[in-house]
């Protein structure tokens, strides 16, 4: 049961991270094309920068970053100060892991929930981006995918640290 969960969490997190990476690469590519287009404007051959490239960049990066969150969570990639870890008793470290993972789950759930409400607002008011006139809610929707997976993976991490506490086995590298 646990190993199945672990595999699903890993597949979800990695899949999201790679999707985010592809979005990032697309942003790089489009920005590059847009710059070339801008350089060619004086030649007047009908080429120019991509309209609203800054809007597209903002939406793309936001979606990518949300998609990166689950992987960071699963890999314990968050910045922490582990100075006192060796000084704390083993059980205390396990308990801290459970508490911090639960804290992360709370934060992730809160972020996803509020983002969903924010998306509804944007949908209701029909807000669009300044130049490209893209509906803002679509950016929120793309972000929401990552945020929901972040919460799911964070939930798995709570199970993972609870299990480690129960088994009191040494916490190895995440699988």
């Amino acid at each position, binding site marked *: 049961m646990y190993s199945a969960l672990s595999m699903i969490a890993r597949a979800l997190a990695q899949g999201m991270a790679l999707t985010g990476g592809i979005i990032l690469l697309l*942003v790089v590519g489009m920005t590059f094309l847009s710059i070339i287009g801008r350089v060619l404007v004086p030649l007047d051959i009908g080429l120019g920068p991509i309209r609203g490239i800054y809007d597209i960049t903002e939406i793309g990066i936001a979606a990518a970053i949300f998609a990166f*969150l689950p992987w960071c969570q699963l890999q314990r990639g968050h910045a922490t100060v582990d100075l006192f870890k060796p000084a704390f008793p083993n059980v205390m470290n396990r308990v801290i892991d459970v508490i911090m993972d639960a804290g992360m789950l709370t934060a992730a759930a809160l972020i996803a929930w509020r983002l969903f409400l924010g998306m509804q607002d944007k949908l209701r008011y029909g807000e669009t981006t300044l130049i490209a006139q893209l509906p803002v809610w679509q950016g929120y929707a793309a972000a929401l995918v990552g945020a929901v997976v972040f919460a799911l993976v964070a939930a798995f991490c709570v199970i993972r640290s609870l299990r480690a506490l129960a088994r009191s086995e040494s916490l190895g590298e995440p699988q």
Partner: protein
Amino acid sequence: MSNIDLALWSFPILLILIFLRAPIALAMLAVGFAGTYMVTGTTMMTLNQMKTLTYGTFSNYSFSIIPLFLLMGQFATLSGMSAALFRAAESFLGHRKGGVAMSAIGACAGFGAICGSSLATAATMGQVALPELKRYGYPGSLSTGALAAGGTLGILIPPSVILVIYAILAEQNIEKLFVAALIPGILAALGYVLAISIWVRVSPNSAAVKPRVPWGERMVALLSVWPVLTIFLLVVGGIYLGVFTPTEAAAVGAAGTGGAALASGQMSWAKLVQAILATASASAMIYLIILGAGFYNNFLALTQLPQTASVWVAEQGFSPWLVLAAVLVMYLVFGCIMDSLSMVLLTVPIIFPIMVVLDFGMSANDFGLWFGILVLIVVEVGLITPPVGMNLFIINSMDKDTPIGQTYKGALPFVLTDMIRVVILASFPAITLWLVWFIDAWVG
């Protein structure tokens, strides 16, 4: 409890949480959330902000430079440029006493010009230079210490992720910060080379030197690093001349190093996936801390602590230089235990408003640049000071024969040159600002 009391109490609470191993982002989120509740008596305000705050932060155009620079650095590690840089530096320095270690520093400086991250620079150059240093009989302490210190050139020499964050927080001009970082960065590399030169003379060791390389071969080796120079000039020059926005420049840089990686034949699907996953983890970590810092700083702003503190400091009539010294020492101390990015995100919003009202006899713009470079250097020192120095750990883990104590010892001379450099740059702001003034006069 007054609002100011609340704000003052929030520091120790935040620190306790962090020392209890709370992820720094989570600690700032939690303290910011709870603090705002205690000031306003309701959670509705924060909850309503959160509908747009997270997306707003993650989609902020200024921040979008960060994942792109991280991706650029990851591609740079696959470009084979680290080996080319090392060969070029060796052809110039290899025949000197301590020359192979000096070449490693030189190559780190070159790599820092296309990589904005310290850890990536240390890890990449470590792979190339450690075996060579071992082959020439360098002691483990010197080779690991030199490479750990060399790694910090990744952020000292622009582009630099830490400078980007500072620029956003302190509302400074990112292109001028990059230019201002250039001379101090080169001084850092020279200081490290000097430290090696003194070390190999003072402490007898078995390190061998390479034969002198003829100038023709040196030029060939130097020409082989043209992609590094091209990408660096395109990115930093392009930003400075206003050809690109900083984000566009980072995208160009990522495309450039990505192209170099493809051309070198080192890029495979597995490597690409690795590069993306590493970028993903680092970006998510940074953005979550930015989000947490946003919550925490909103709370501090509600209590008006930054304004009150800056008025208070100004009224006390402290010597500005004494305050500066105290701030820099604080960064050095905290740098020993905290990572540089979290430290900058946590402190700059509070410290900068205090510092900027003090009179150092220069314009606010110049001060912002100069102070930013000083902060950059002192937080970077934290990467090579025990007990928590990420560069030391990463290099030490690559050299199985050297105990971590030897690496600590090996980093010491380099930390010393960092200290001397901070004092010099703090005493003579013109060293940092000269190039900015010069280019401004020339361009404008």
